[in-house]
């Protein structure tokens, strides 16, 4: 067990689909126009006037067993000791196998550079001691970012006291975004 394991706990009920996280990420990471490293999944159902609308912030799940890293033929996709999954741009040949292997469609292809790109948990910010841009900017503080390996940390506290689920656990990727119920 590493002493650091970054993860996100998301309280989707608080999400109001304002897209602040999406734009914050675009700015912080100079994401090419029209693309996004994070997005809000929407669900609308029901028939007037019995209706439901739900929103779910999504991005790379920085899985424990990241299938993207496994399938990468050059090692461009890799995982740090703290769990963050990153892409070495200079080693990426642009085969997009990782995109196909990602159960969350969290990666996109950047045509200007010919490489694949995705959420980095704002590793450059986190390494400075800041939180990811999406986490910081959120009006309703939907996302809680922290160190899962810290038994006294806020993530463990939330997960110990609240019910949660993860997305697509069947893939065996062991995703590290926990959605509170």
């Amino acid at each position: 067990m590493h002493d650091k394991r970054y993860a996100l706990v998301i309280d989707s009920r608080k999400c109001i689909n304002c897209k602040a996280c999406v734009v914050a990420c675009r700015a912080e990471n100079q994401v090419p126009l029209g693309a996004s490293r994070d997005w809000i999944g929407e669900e609308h159902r029901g028939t007037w006037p019995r209706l439901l609308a739900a929103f779910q912030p999504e991005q790379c799940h920085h899985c424990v067993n990241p299938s993207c890293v496994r399938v990468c033929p050059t090692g461009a996709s890799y995982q740090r000791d703290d769990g963050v999954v990153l892409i070495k741009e200079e080693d990426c040949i642009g085969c997009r196998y990782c995109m196909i292997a990602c159960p969350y469609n969290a990666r996109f292809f950047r045509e200007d550079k010919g490489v694949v790109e995705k959420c980095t948990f704002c590793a450059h910010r986190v390494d400075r001691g800041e939180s990811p841009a999406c986490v910081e900017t959120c009006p309703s503080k939907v996302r809680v970012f922290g160190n899962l390996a810290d038994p006294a940390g806020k993530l463990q506290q939330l997960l110990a006291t609240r019910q949660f689920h993860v997305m697509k656990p069947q893939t065996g990727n062991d995703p590290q975004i926990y959605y509170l119920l």
Partner: protein
Amino acid sequence: MPVSSLDRRRFIQIAGAGAVAATQIGCGRHQIALGQRREIPTTCELCPNKCSVIAVVEDGLIRKLNPNPENPKSRGMLCARGNAGLLQVYDPNRLKRPLIRAGARGEGKWREVSWDEAFDYTAQRLSAVKEKYGPQGVLWSSTEAFAEVFFKNLGMAFGSPNIVRHPTLCLASVNLAYSMTFGTVPSFDLLNANYVIMAGANRFEALITPDTMDLIESTMNRKTRLVCLDPRFTVTASRADEWYPVKPGTDMAFILAMLHVIISEGRHDKEFVANYCQGFEQLAELVKQYTPEWAEKETEIPAADIVRIAREFSDAAPRAVFYAGRRSSTYQNDFQMRRAQAILNAVVGNWDREGGMVPNAKIALGEYMFLPWDDPQAPRVDEMEKNFPLAAKGDGAYLKLRENVLAGSPYPVKAWMILKQDPLNALPEQAKTMRMIEQMDFIAAIDIQMSDTTWYADVVFPESTYLERLDPIEVLSGIWPVVVLRQPVVKPVYDTKPCLDIVQGLARRLGLQQYFDYTIEQWNDAAVKELPLEMPLEYLKKHGVYTPPGGPKYGATLNPEHRFVTKSGKIELYSERLQEAGHDPLPVYQPPLGPPEGRFRLVLGRKAYYTHANSTSNPWLLDFAPENHLSINPAAAASVGVADGDMVEVSSSVGAVRLRARLTQEIRPDCVYMLHGFGKQSPWLKRAYHRGGSDAAILETAWDKVSGNAAMHETFVKIRKV
């Protein structure tokens, strides 16, 4: 299956904008040591909330705007627009230098000129109008901004009574209703309330600080019960504990029935009413007729629910609020509906209590004492005294003003100075605004981008964007008020100036320089000198915001000595002033007109991807809603033979627009909805140009009778597949 509205996977190559442009522009203009990274606190200007931001500047380029957690009003957040704000600076299509029209109006032929030429020309044209029609022949219109005061003062010093501000397109009816009841407009303590009723307010899509964050916090922690009344299933409705698709225009019936239940069951706060309110007996008498059974017929909300909500609401009081909302008038009796809200809040005694309705705390700023000028000779062209004697006169009444200008009565108005405003999209009935433009001898606009209205100006003054200029220091009022500074984080990228410089440039040539002989620094020095800080300006430059210690305070007005700023000195449930002015002294219900056969009520709302009509051209925002749709219930769509995705013509008595229909269960079948801010006609708004349609083109002219506020839900439209 979740449907993402966003196509993320492959990015669309759009020429020119964004970080690429930023790099190109920045490298050319500024010689700043590479690798230098600075964090400069300042204040956002993407919407009226004015959140505190920290700009990260690297090598002279703004890289990122982060939220500033020191501001308790913005609560450490920055919304999508706030994050996208930096593209204002690096927008290749922004206004870059002064322009004088070269072709016909609206033809789009411009001549780039020096500031001197722009000032000289404008001053000469204004003087010509003044000579012929008097100073009242020049109209000065502006939208709220820190530097608006300078522009307004220039208009007044010029001698014109015709300063028209934005409130009658905004909150005038709310402000007037609460002012006439409490002598002030309070804030709502949503963080601590246990019961909140929102009618027509959509706090989770149209963001207001700190209300949005407070409400999501309190409701999602299952502490606060939220009851929502809205003809649309908004995000707010989706998060509410109860949602009622109320029949549009009948909110007041719901409120009056609540009052009926509360008063007839003796659930009001009797001590509070006795000590602080006047006119309770008349109120009790009035609401006797408004039974829940009667209200059920009006509102389509079951009587049993009205009774239950009234009981729960009064049980939860004082931690219960009927939220005032923040929108322009809906109907022509909007003021009275707002009064009913205010009265409901008053009788349950939530005034100035934690979790209730709290008068805004003040922080006194000092003032730079500039020379005062003579009063204008002429009366206002909108004849406020005659038409809206109770309203805030300095703001004017925009729609009535337009009527009178078009009629040339009581006198002609032939020049128009515009600050940061796009009347073509902001006012209902675009065709009329266009006629107003056409009848002007001269129009000058100060803006940062070529808005639709600016497109028709004769002279365009490019203002520096909020990240490039120093603005007057301001107090953001609220339960917990703060002082904020907007300071430049980069030098102006183009040949632009802040508002005060533009005003001074004009003032000098109009012979009014004596009224503006100060710098923005002097102005700010004067403003902060009374703050309890050792080096107030230095503090603000470093922190961007000053928050008085101690947090929110409650109950300062809850002593029998306190005099409310009303005629009686009490909270006026019954208003003599209203009676004197010929209005109902207590809110009397008037049922709204229903849509005629084959027509639908057009309802409006905002979504915080865009601020009004002015950020749809931002590439980081536009893909959230690349164009607006006509939202229509499938049952209604079937009745007019429209399928999802069909192009439809939406027409009213004043105009028509073409939009794609979006069939959704999330709206009443008798209403249709469209998002504001689309259908742009200025080609310089490259990304928004000709996308969707403008609601202003089809909204009919109507206003609230007491405040003069534009009433936006009084239009019935026809839908036709094309």
